[in-house]
């Protein structure tokens, strides 16, 4: 028996070392990717440049919620907070994406830290809190979106902080303070991205279950503050806030995409999801529902929206955060049971001791089973190349539109996650040559080409597309300008413009070059008038 105990102790220690190595390894990969992106001056994900442009507009005292039917046909469809957080960094970095990428990256680190902090407070010890926090940063979804100039991860940070505060609203000394801070974080999350509404419902449901009166007061206070800001924004933008952030976000829904993404999310995060779901069931029927379990449940609602046109796996990042946190609590609960099992008799004490030893192996074992399910890594270079060969994924690469990325991801095809190459930088410079020598404003599907050349940003394609699909866009002026060949250059990537706009461009502009950059073809089009001159 003593030998068995010693064996379990040694095995547990070895497993812990392996788990820490695996999750710290993921953290190193995340930092490598983030640093690589910080240097990249162009859009890595379509939409990054538009988010930066919103921040630039705020820094100039202008609203990004504008009429889309008039030149420059640009408006934002997102709330302002993320862009306002970028504004103080603009004097430091200039109109460069690194400003927004840093905000988002730091937000993911804060979220991971908050998860670890909450688990540490509830469970104690170091191993489970550490891995719970690192697990969030090891998720394929967080890795891919985290260092982008997109607002999503900043919303997740505010959501996590909100839940952490609201969970402590019954604190004997600081209950009211915690509730108020929680409400403030919910307000921030909602004004970072509209999807935070699911976390708002989770937090208020938790307060409602425990204190009906306070939940009604909290809900009313939050509604009043959110409503007042909403009304002020709408008045200040002459109704464009409503059109661009609410009406334009009503998109087509494909339930098959939702089912696919639910399956992918579960496949990638199986152990965390199963532990969190088991903890939810335990609290529902045997314990009391916590804010964290309710958050996990309601975060699935956000995932259910992932079938919207333009949505994707990012809609599951709140559910990933909730699963990492709640799974840590579930494992803590198991540890607690094992410890309290043998409080009285000697026989029980022995059982408790063995149960604790078994758990000391089982818990790192579960984390170790989970680690390869999320495998994502660059596959070239002296370090990553060797590791990729060791893991046998050096040939399982992600194939882009015009290149094969030296990157492996357990989720399969993805447009994000790979590192940039010297060829990508050269291709970017070639496109910039076209932009700098353009004979007229540049009609680009990505904003960074125009911003880097000091040119005006013209159009937000997906916004125009959404408005067009909702019968909210008058395309007369944009088509008139295209037909007059007012624009000196057109740059397409995904061609997410309304069909009449694409048709008008097809009739008045001609492709001159297709440039492969970052795995995508960028189509360069010149106006017919310019081609007539050169011919």
């Amino acid at each position, binding site marked *: 028996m003593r030998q068995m105990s010693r064996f379990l102790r040694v095995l547990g220690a070895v497993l812990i070392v392996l788990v820490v190595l695996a999750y710290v390894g993921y953290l190193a990969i995340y930092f490598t990717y983030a640093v690589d992106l910080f240097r990249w001056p162009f859009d890595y994900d379509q939409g990054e440049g538009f988010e930066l442009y919103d921040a630039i507009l705020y820094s100039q005292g202008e609203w990004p919620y504008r009429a889309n039917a008039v030149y420059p046909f640009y408006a934002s469809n997102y709330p302002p907070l993320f862009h306002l957080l970028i504004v103080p960094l603009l004097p430091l970095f200039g109109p460069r994406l690194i400003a927004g990428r840093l905000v988002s990256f730091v937000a993911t680190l804060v979220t991971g830290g908050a998860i670890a902090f909450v688990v540490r407070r509830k469970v104690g010890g170091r191993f489970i809190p550490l891995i719970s926090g690192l697990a969030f940063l090891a998720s394929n979804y967080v890795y891919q979106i985290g260092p982008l100039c997109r607002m999503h991860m900043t919303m997740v940070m505010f959501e996590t902080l909100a839940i952490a505060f609201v969970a402590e609203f019954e604190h004997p000394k600081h209950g009211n303070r915690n509730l108020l801070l929680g409400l403030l974080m919910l307000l921030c999350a909602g004004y970072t991205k509209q999807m935070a509404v699911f976390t708002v419902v989770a937090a208020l449901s938790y307060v*409602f*279950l*425990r*204190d*009906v009166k306070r939940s009604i007061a909290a809900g009313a206070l939050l509604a009043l503050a959110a409503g007042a800001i909403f009304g002020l924004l709408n008045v200040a933008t002459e109704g464009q806030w409503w059109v661009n952030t609410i009406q334009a976000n009503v998109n087509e829904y494909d*339930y098959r995409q939702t089912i696919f993404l639910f399956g992918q999310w579960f496949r990638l995060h199986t152990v965390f999801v199963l532990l969190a779901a088991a903890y939810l069931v335990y609290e*529902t*029927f045997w314990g*009391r*529902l916590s804010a964290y379990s309710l958050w996990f449940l309601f975060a699935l609602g956000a995932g259910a929206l992932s079938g919207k046109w333009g949505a994707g796996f990012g809609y599951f990042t709140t559910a990933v955060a909730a699963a990492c946190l709640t799974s840590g609590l579930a494992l803590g609960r198991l540890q607690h049971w094992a410890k309290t099992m043998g409080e009285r008799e000697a026989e029980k004490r022995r059982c408790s001791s063995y149960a604790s030893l078994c758990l000391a192996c089982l818990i790192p074992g579960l984390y170790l089973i989970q680690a390869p399910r999320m495998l994502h890594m660059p596959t070239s270079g002296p370090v990553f190349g060797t590791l990729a060969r060791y893991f046998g994924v050096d040939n399982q690469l992600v194939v882009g539109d015009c290149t094969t990325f030296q990157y492996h991801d357990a989720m399969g095809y993805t447009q994000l996650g790979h590192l940039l190459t010297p060829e990508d930088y050269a291709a970017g410079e070639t496109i910039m040559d076209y932009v700098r020598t353009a004979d007229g404003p540049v009609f680009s599907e990505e904003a960074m080409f125009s911003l880097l050349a000091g040119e005006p940003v013209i159009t937000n394609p997906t916004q125009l597309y959404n408005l067009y699909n909702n019968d909210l866009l008058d395309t007369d002026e944009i088509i008139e300008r295209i037909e007059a060949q007012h624009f000196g250059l057109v740059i397409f990537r995904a061609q997410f413009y309304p069909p009449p706009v694409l048709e008008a461009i097809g009739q008045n502009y001609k492709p001159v070059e297709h440039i492969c950059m970052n795995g995508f073809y960028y189509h360069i089009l010149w106006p017919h008038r310019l081609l007539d001159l050169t011919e």
Partner: protein
Amino acid sequence: MISKRQLGIFVIALGVLALMGILAVDLLGAGQWGGFGPLQRLGLLLSGLTVVVGLLLYRLGDRPA
């Protein structure tokens, strides 16, 4: 403070409402499919599960939810 029984009643009501909504889709002629669509089948399964969870909670009495 809400009890498990009260939460159970709420969850049952939610499930029944969802069930009625799913059936009403056909009566109103909404949706993309002529008959009972795949989303409706999924909704039916989820709302049925919701009612079962509600019933189980109801049986747990006055314990705090």
